[in-house]
């Protein structure tokens, strides 16, 4: 019996630890975003509360919690209140299958190693859209509804690409489990210095995952559900106070989760050189460093790229990302089955770079002829 109680205690400690770490990461992310964007725009950014303004987010959060909670008279009472919570919960739950380190003694640094692993993350991701859709519908107002309709179309479309982009990882790793995928990426470096991470063997899928991940989290340049220049605030226009804070929190939680998944699936998770000193700490540091690398990319893109038009967004998802992901899954399958003299990683890497170049070519500004086509009357879908 003591064993069970001890297990539960350990689990509780881990849950609380992960929760706290996530909250702190979110606070840091928001602060980082404001500072980095400010830097890129040659502004100063928040620098008053705490050292370098680190505690600014905390102050904002406290302010939001004490703000008056306004509910529009048209709103659906129940769903209006539930929507932010629905948005939050999957964001937290998704993190529970991510291994953020290797082990503390006999305990693995992961809340649960499900055998469906990353599928669970996809499942949670697919639930997020309910938060947005319900928020938009329950507000009983037009702009939020438009944001909700847009986002349901967008998120479903990009979910497909996101799911497909993980398929290649599953195929090469031979498992869906997050810990298994991390384990499959360990091993002696190729040529002595290239790690066996899937970012190399599955480079096109890495790009697809990153792009669809940005779209799934509704971040710029795919932030159409809350496009402030068109829809006021999008799905959360009517929200204020605590409920708005929850949406805000969920958005950044999602960034952290997507970064963590990308780290796990493509950057070897907590894998990295670890000195003998404090062996449990280094993997966690590696993991954190990789996650913050992705978070930086998110922020960087937001500061750099303008928002897409909605029809181009859908075109990009359906006509570029999904075909590329499908083609690459097919290539991976062939490479895995066919006997070749070349080592498989090299082959996959080489084909991957080629395909990635092809994918990137779609991001170049379209030619004049295409532009003419798009602006021709009746030539494009509004």
């Amino acid at each position, binding site marked *: 019996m003591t064993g069970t109680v001890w297990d539960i205690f350990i689990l509780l400690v881990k849950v609380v630890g992960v929760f706290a770490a996530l909250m702190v990461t979110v606070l840091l992310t928001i602060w980082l975003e404001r500072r980095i964007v400010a830097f890129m725009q040659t502004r100063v950014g928040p620098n008053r509360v705490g050292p370098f303004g680190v505690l600014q987010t905390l102050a904002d959060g406290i302010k939001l919690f004490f703000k008056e909670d306004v509910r529009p008279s048209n709103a659906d009472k129940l*769903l209006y209140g539930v929507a932010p919570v629905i948005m939050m919960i999957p964001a937290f739950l998704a993190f529970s299958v991510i291994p953020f380190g290797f082990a503390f003694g006999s305990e693995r640094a992961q809340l649960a190693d499900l055998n469906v692993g990353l*599928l669970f993350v996809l499942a949670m991701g*697919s639930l997020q859209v309910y938060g947005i*859709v319900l928020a938009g519908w329950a507000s009983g107002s037009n702009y939020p509804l438009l944001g909700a309709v847009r986002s349901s179309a967008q998120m479903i479309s990009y979910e497909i690409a996101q799911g497909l982009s993980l398929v290649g990882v599953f195929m090469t790793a031979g*498992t869906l489990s997050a810990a298994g995928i991390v384990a499959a990426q360990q091993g002696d470096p190729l040529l002595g210095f290239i790690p066996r991470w899937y970012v190399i063997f599955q480079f096109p899928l890495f790009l697809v995952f990153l792009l669809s991940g940005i779209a799934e989290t509704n971040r710029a340049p795919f932030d159409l559900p809350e496009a402030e220049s068109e829809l006021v605030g999008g799905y959360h226009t009517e929200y204020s106070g605590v409920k708005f804070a929850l949406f805000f929190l969920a958005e950044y939680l999602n960034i952290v989760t997507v970064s963590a998944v990308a780290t796990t699936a493509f950057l070897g998770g907590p894998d990295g050189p670890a000195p003998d000193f404090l062996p449990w700490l280094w993997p966690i540091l590696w993991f954190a460093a990789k996650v913050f690398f992705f978070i930086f990319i998110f922020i960087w893109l937001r500061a750099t790229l303008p928002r897409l038009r909605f029809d181009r967004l859908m075109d990009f998802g359906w006509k570029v990302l999904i075909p590329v992901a499908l083609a690459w899954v097919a290539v991976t399958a062939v490479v895995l089955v066919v006997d070749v003299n070349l080592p498989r990683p090299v082959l996959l890497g080489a084909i991957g770079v080629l395909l990635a170049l092809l994918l990137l070519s779609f991001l170049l500004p379209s030619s004049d002829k295409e532009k003419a086509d798009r602006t021709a009357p009746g030539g494009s879908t509004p």
Partner: protein
Amino acid sequence: MTSSEQAELIVFIILAPLAVVTALGMVLTRNAVYSALLLVVNFFCLAGFYVLLEAQFVAAVQVIVYAGAIMVLFLFVLMLLGIGNEVVVKEQMRGQRPAAVLLALGLLVAIVGALAAGVFDAEPASLAAANEGGNVEAIGRILFTRYTFAFETAGILLVVAAVGALVLGKRQP
């Protein structure tokens, strides 16, 4: 009863009534959006049952496909058409509703009776054998060996569905 069996029982006792209540609510509520949401909750209960039956893959797929994609599309259409409010269905034929309720109850009794008679005598199949090598692996294995043909024909079904959606959705000149 081991502690894990106890836990399973507790989860089942929570999920089963919830599943029935949400299913009934889905049929009885007049608000289309609430109806769709109750169905989503029902899908979650189903996913929970699958987990209890150690079919984690099916549970994940249930959530991803049904709750995450299909029902979102339902909501999408409901919102696009603006059918958020009460939908009142008029009875076309007199006595149709009582007759329907009566027949449905009859079907329920028949099926539940047959299930009750059949299930309690049956020798339960071994989960351990079915899930040998892991649930995901076992499903993959059976899809690509015994049920290859059904699996491949399902591909044709999907092609037909896509073409059909295209034909019906295409803007008429």
